């Protein structure tokens, strides 16, 4: 991601409650799917079966506290990312989900008090830690991303980051 791309815009596709767990995001029965793109077919399958059809590229998921709690399954993050979601904004994230997201290049933004409804258009400045609701005109604070997270997101995730690093060093 370039400096420019550390700003993103998208429509809120859904507002979810607190403690959305990884089984809700991606059911355990599909854990033997190891093709990242294919995980998208089962996003929110049990809890929010209609959501997948409503998703458009770049959409933003707005979550509550402790988003992504539970399992370490990376498929939960992959399913969100490869469904075309542009970012997840939540009051807080479970730590493994957060790290998985940065590692796969999915922007995750912690913000306490965002007021938005499904359909609202948001503009997120990842570096400054600022979220504007373009529909209502309100502006909210977000936690600015850690420099390490910025580095990984800019590289497109941990794999491209390490690929570059290790091809330079020749190891």
């Amino acid at each position, binding site marked *: 991601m370039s400096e420019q791309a550390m700003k993103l815009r998208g429509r809120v596709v859904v507002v979810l409650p607190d*403690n959305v767990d*990884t089984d809700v995001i991606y059911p355990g029965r599909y854990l033997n799917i190891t093709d990242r793109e294919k995980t998208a077919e089962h996003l929110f399958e049990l809890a929010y079966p209609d959501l997948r059809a409503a998703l458009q590229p770049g959409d933003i998921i707005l979550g509550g506290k*402790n988003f992504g709690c*539970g*399992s*370490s399954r990376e498929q939960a993050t992959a399913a969100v990312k490869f469904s075309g979601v542009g970012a997840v904004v939540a009051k807080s994230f479970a730590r493994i989900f957060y790290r998985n997201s940065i590692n796969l290049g999915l922007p995750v933004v912690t913000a306490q008090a965002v007021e938005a409804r499904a359909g609202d258009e948001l503009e997120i400045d990842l570096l400054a830690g600022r979220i504007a609701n373009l529909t209502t005109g309100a502006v909210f604070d977000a936690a600015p991303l850690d420099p390490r997270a910025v580095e990984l997101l800019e590289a497109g*995730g941990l794999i491209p980051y390490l690929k570059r690093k290790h091809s330079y060093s020749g190891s």
Partner: protein
Amino acid sequence: MGMTLAEKILARASGRATVTPDQVVVARVDLALSHENADLVRKSFKEIGVARVWDPDKIVIILDHRVPAESEKTATTHKAIREFVREQGIRNFYDVGRGGICHQVLAENGHVQPGMVVVGTDSHTTTHGAFGAFAAGIGATEMAGVWTEGELWFKTPATMRIEVDGEFAEWVSAKDLILYIIGQLGADGADYRAVEFDGPAIRRLSVASRMVLANLSMEMGAKVAFTPVEEIAPDPGAHYERVIRIDATREVAEPQIACPHAVDNVKPLSALGNVPVEQAVLGSCTNGRLEDFEIAARILAGCRVHQRTRLIVIPASQRIYLEAMRLGYIQTMVEAGAMVNPPGCGPCVGVHQGILAAGEACVSSTNRNFLGRMGSKDSRVYLASPAVVAASAVAGRIAHPAEVTA
């Protein structure tokens, strides 16, 4: 300034004299655990493009989630992992029939030592804090990075200390204590934190029971959790973000149940009313050990599992299976009408060996009761101690062990 256990271990692993909460450090990894998702890790590792893993002797791979393979797809995954293990010279590989659930196998084979930094591609890696290790769950791509570089960045967690005093009543166990704590603190009550358990009641617990506490700490968001060990201790002046004191005698006077569909939706058993159960599960990395089978066998001896209910028993490892047979626990439970599954995760993660239909309820000694975790999204899972699981299997509804043993 004194350091907590988490701070001490991270300081050593990152080559510093001290670290403080929120400080980001790059730590050397002593042990890297994976299960079937080693296949995901392998794919990411291949994409990165380095030829060899950093240290094959520090990687442990244990097949447990779908053993023996329940589908051709899983069989293919298992095969790919076996090939990778051979190619990379990874000796610590536990195949079907050689191990059991990853956390149990890692522990019982002495892979974990106090003071180690352990990472695992499984959220319940926190279990190994019962052996004094800084043990945290990570994702598959991150693990590919560990396989490549042997190190990982961590934000030093603040530490929460939980001191437990008092006596456990009859039929009350470590499982009830930790469910109670999760109920009090909430599913994010220890988010990003290290948790140190201590106090007289903790020090009287068996190693298996301490593993239960460290294991379930994950369900309140803990990054790592510790129970006391002799080899390494927090400094006397260590700073705690929060200290919680619990009197087990008064606060955890009876079995605790986590009701659907959240682990923090905890109620004392007496507040539950009549909850019929179609299935009872005794097993998992939380409660599939010898002491769990001992108490269940004691309750089931001479009883029959209720006709409404199926009791599924899963030893956490081959070793536990053998020992439980030798001690007669398996015999007692099978005579009571239990079905024994092979060592592994079984129905805990909802892929095979005991899936629930719509409308069914299950009482389980496992650690998650999320929507659809064990099958249909219209099924319900109640988390409980092994004693309550056994008693409920006999009663056909969630029951106090005293009811069926009186």
